[in-house]
C-alpha cells in the first residue's frame, strides 16, 4: 500500500485564506468596546466576530474538501509561481497594474490631462496599438472624459502642473 503525500492545492489555499482573515479579525476585535448585555446591546465586535466564525467553518470545510478531492486539482508548487511570469500576456497584465499604481501616485501632481494621456499612451503602446493610433485614441479618450466628467458633470479634476503653466 502506497502512502499518499499531502499536496497543497487551490482549495487548501482558499481555506487557509479564510482562516487567516478570521484570525486577523479575532485578534483585532477584543480591543473594541464591549456591549451592554443586560439591555441586549451588542458591541461593535458582535457582527465581525459572527462573520469570523462563519469564515472559520468555511475554511475548515475547504481544507477538508481540498484533501478529499486532491486528485481533481493540480498541486501548487514552486513551478506554479515561476509560470506566473512566463507568458507575455500575463506580464502585460502585471504591467497594466503598475500603470494604475503610477496613475494613482501621479494624478494629483501631474493633473488629470497629463496623467490620463500618459496612462493611455503607455497602455495602448504596451498592447501593441500603432503609435499614430495610440496618440489619436489617447487624445480622444482624454478629451471625451474631460468633457463628460469635468464639464458636463462638473466634477473637480486636478489641474496639476498645468495650473503652474497658467492652463
Amino acid at each position, binding site marked *: 500500500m502506497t502512502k499518499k503525500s499531502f499536496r497543497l492545492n487551490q482549495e487548501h489555499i482558499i481555506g487557509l485564506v479564510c482562516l487567516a482573515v478570521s484570525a486577523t479579525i479575532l485578534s483585532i476585535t477584543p480591543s473594541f468596546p464591549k456591549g451592554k448585555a443586560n439591555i441586549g*446591546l451588542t458591541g461593535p465586535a458582535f457582527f465581525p466576530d459572527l462573520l469570523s466564525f462563519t469564515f472559520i467553518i468555511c475554511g475548515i*470545510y475547504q481544507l477538508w474538501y481540498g484533501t478529499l478531492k486532491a486528485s481533481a486539482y493540480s498541486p501548487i508548487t514552486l513551478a506554479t509561481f515561476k509560470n506566473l511570469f512566463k507568458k507575455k500576456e500575463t506580464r502585460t497584465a502585471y504591467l497594466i497594474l503598475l500603470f494604475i499604481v503610477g496613475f494613482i501616485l501621479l494624478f494629483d501632481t501631474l493633473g488629470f490631462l497629463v496623467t490620463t494621456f500618459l496612462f493611455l499612451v503607455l497602455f495602448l503602446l504596451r498592447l501593441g496599438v500603432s503609435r499614430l493610433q495610440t496618440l489619436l485614441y489617447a487624445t480622444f479618450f482624454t478629451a471625451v472624459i474631460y468633457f463628460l466628467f469635468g464639464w458636463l458633470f462638473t466634477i473637480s479634476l486636478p489641474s496639476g502642473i498645468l495650473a503652474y503653466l497658467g492652463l
Partner: protein
Amino acid sequence: MRTWGYDMDAILSVFRIEILVPWLLAMVLGIFVGAMPGLTATMAVALIVPLTFHTPPIVGLAMILGVSFTAIFAGDIPATFLRVPGTPASGAAVLDGYEMNKQGKGPLAIALDLSCSTLGGTIGVLILITISPILATFALQFTHFEYFWLALLGLSMSAVITKGSTMKGLISMTGGLILSTIGLDISTGYPRFSFGHTYLMSGINFIPVMIGLFGISEVLRSISVTSHDQLGDAAIISNVKADFRSVGKIMGRNKRLILQSSVIGTLIGALPGAGADIAAWVAYGMAKKTSKTPEKFGTGSEEGVIAPTTANNAALGGTWIPALVFGIPGDSITAIVLGAMMMYGLKPGPLVFQGSRDLVNQIFTVAVISQFFLLVLGYLGIRAFTWFFKFPRNVVLAGITIFSIIGAYALRSSTFDVGLVLIFGILGYLMERVTIPLPPFILGLILGPMIEENLRIGLVKTSGNFWPFFNRPISAFFAFLLILIFLYEPVKLLIQRKRK
C-alpha cells in the same frame, strides 16, 4: 366632486412640448450614464435634480422618472456585452446575458432584455397605480425583525444561485459582509478596522469595489488570455445590436415568468431599502427554482435574462409606492425624489392623493409613457454602443480601464477610491481563477449594514432575546423561506434518490 374630464386634462397635459423635451433629454442622459460602468442610476438622478430646481414640479419629476427607467435598463448593455454591469441593478443580468453573448446570441439577449425591461416597467407602474395603498400598508408593518430576514433572504439567494459550489458562494458572501463592517459602528460610532485612516472610517463604498471586481478584473483576464480567446472576444465586441426577430415567441413562451418577475420586482421595490438590485437577484433565484431547466441558468439561459431584467425595471414602479403614499423612500433614487418633491413645496404622503391629485395623475402618466420612450431610446442606445464597441479590442480595454478609474475618482474626488478599484480588480481576478463567484461578494457589501443594523437594533428591543425574530408572522414567513432556499436542493435530491 371631480370628474373624469379633470383627470383626462391632467393626463393630457404631460404631452406639452415644455415637458416632453427635458423629459426625453433626461432619458437620453439616463441611457448614457447607466451604460457607463461606475455611474449608477442614483448618480444619474442626483445629476438631474439640480437641473430641475427652476422647472415646474411635473417637469422635474418627469425628468427624474425618465432618467431612472433608462439608466436601469442601460446598465444591462455593458453587462451583456462586456460583463461589466453598468449599475448594481444589472449584476444579475450579467450571469446569463454575457453567457448568451459568448455564444453569439448577444443581439437576442439585449433585445429580450429591452423588451422585458419595458414590459416589466409597465407592469410595475400599473401595479403602482392600482394597488399602491394596500402594498404600502403592508410594507409599513415591517419592523427590524422583518428587515433583517428580508436582507438575509436577498443575500442568501445570491449565494445559492451562483454557479458551482454553494460553499464558495457562502465564502464570497461572507467576504462582502466582512468588508461592510469597516468604518464607524452603527450603534456606538466606534471606528472598526479603520486604523486611523479617514477614508476607511466612512466605510468602503461599493462603487469602486464593483468597478474593480467586474471591470478591472475583466480587463486583466482579457489581457492575460491566449490569442484564441482574443479572437473570440473581438467577435463579441463587434456584435452589438438588438435582434428582435424571435423575442415575441420567447416572451410568449415565458408569460408566467414575466408576470412572476414583475410582481416580485414590484413587491420588493415597494419594501423600503430593497431596490432594483435585490429585486433582480430574488427574481433570478425564484426563476431558477421554478424553472423546468434550472441547470441551464448561468450558461446563457433565456429565462436567466428575462427574470432579472423584468424585475429591476418593475422594482422602480414599486419604489414609488411607499414614497408617494407614505413619504418613505423605497430606495436611494426615491430618497432623492422625496427631497426634490419637498423642494417643490409638495409633501409626499396620503394627503398628496387628495391635495395634488392632478400631479399624481401626471406622475402616473409619465411613468407609463416613459416605458414606450424606453423602448425607442433603449434601441437607439444599443445602436450607439455599437459604434463604441467597433473600436479595436485593445482600445476598448484601454477605454474601459480609464472610464472605470475616472468613474471611481469622480465619487469623492479621491485617488483612494482608485486604489480600491485596483485592489478589488486583483481580488476579483484571483477569485475568478479559483472559481469563487463575484456577485455574492458585492451584495454582501451592499446589504451588510442593513443586516447588521436590523439584527442589533432587534436585539436591543428584545434585550438580547432571539425569539421575536421567529415568532412574528412575517418574520417567521421570511425565516421559513430562507430555510426552504437552503434545503430545497438537498431535499429534492433525497426524494429523487428514494424514488430511484
